[in-house]
């Protein structure tokens, strides 16, 4: 018999309608994936908030470190030329 008493924690992602991404909505406890999906339906979609559910056991989520966010995202910080507004387009030029 397992020593573990608490059901594992799952992160829940919901697609609110066809054509949109699954979005993180919260978490819940369940014994296995099947139960996690059923519980997610009852906890997070009581008012038609979803047409599809993903669940991932929380321990499998790896995240970037917020304390290093400044350095980590720094490479994108000084590259304004990646945005179209960086470039000058003469007024005569249409449709660009």
């Amino acid at each position, binding site marked *: 018999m397992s020593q573990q008493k608490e059901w594992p924690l799952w992160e829940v992602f919901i697609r609110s309608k066809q054509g949109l991404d699954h979005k993180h909505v919260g978490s819940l406890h369940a014994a296995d994936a099947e139960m996690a999906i059923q519980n997610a339906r009852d*906890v997070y979609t009581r008012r038609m908030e979803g047409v599809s559910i993903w669940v991932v056991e929380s321990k499998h989520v790896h995240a970037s470190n917020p304390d290093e966010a400044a350095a980590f995202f720094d490479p994108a910080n000084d590259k304004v030329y990646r945005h179209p507004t960086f470039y000058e387009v003469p007024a005569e030029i249409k449709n660009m």
Partner: protein
Amino acid sequence: METIIEKSLEEAFEEKIANEIRIEPKDWMPEQYRKTLVRQISQHAHSEIVGMLPEGNWITRAPSLKRKAILLSKVQDEAGHGLYLYSAAETLGTSRDQMVADLHSGKAKYSSIFNYPTLSWADIGAIGWLVDGAAIMNQVPLIRTSYGPYARAMVRVCKEESFHQRQGFEIMMTLCNGAPAQKKMAQEAFNRWWWPTLMMFGPKDAESPNTEQSMRWKIKRFTNDELRQRFVDMMVPQAEFLGLTVPDKDLRWNEAKNGYDFGEVDWEEFWNVVKGNGPCNKDRISTRVKAHEEGAWVREAALAHAQKRAEREAVNQA
């Protein structure tokens, strides 16, 4: 060196708070901020869970199938709200088991309002209208609370809560437009719930030890007294519409402050109920403990089943 790092972390935290940038689970935060949130969010979750009990006992006695379906739905929502909040609290490093244990041992509190009994069907109307009305007043500002997961949980809760208040008001309106005996039921329920509802906003500002720090950290956005005043100003006209009399002889409109003056809450009763001596404290907790203990075998069986299936799958794949 340690203290220099600590100080810059604290400064970064304070800067985020000042600039209305939400704090997220993995961000550094002062230990006291974390503790305050765990206490507040878990108590909020417990309130949702214990809050199912006074209404739950009326599901089988609802006066019509429609009312029964609505009440069932509402109680199910409260369970959902409890779960959103427990999972928000868990992002701070506490566990579900720990929170449940603290509720059952009496270490953690829940809203005292649920320690009052529901004597008639009109109490279900009064709870929806008054208690959920007060809850909304407390909860709407929490959508802007500084801790991200708590704020996001509150968005969901508030969206669902407004049906709760309306169904309660509708029950009251039906009774008030009914026979004299029904009107009397509504008035009696109103009399029972008015003062305990005003207590839901907590002790007076001068006697609320946590308010000041919570306001500084933007966990709370308004003080207890501010919210209580707003609630009274909002509810009195609604009571008048229903033809109900507010059970407060000191209630009168104050033109100068553009709000109502109202009588003093019975603080002795308030502290008594907080300390565990309300009409239903023991009953509520023993009901929770019983349900938890009697459900233990289900939780264990589900885990054992999941484990067995995982093992079988591993063998099949080998």
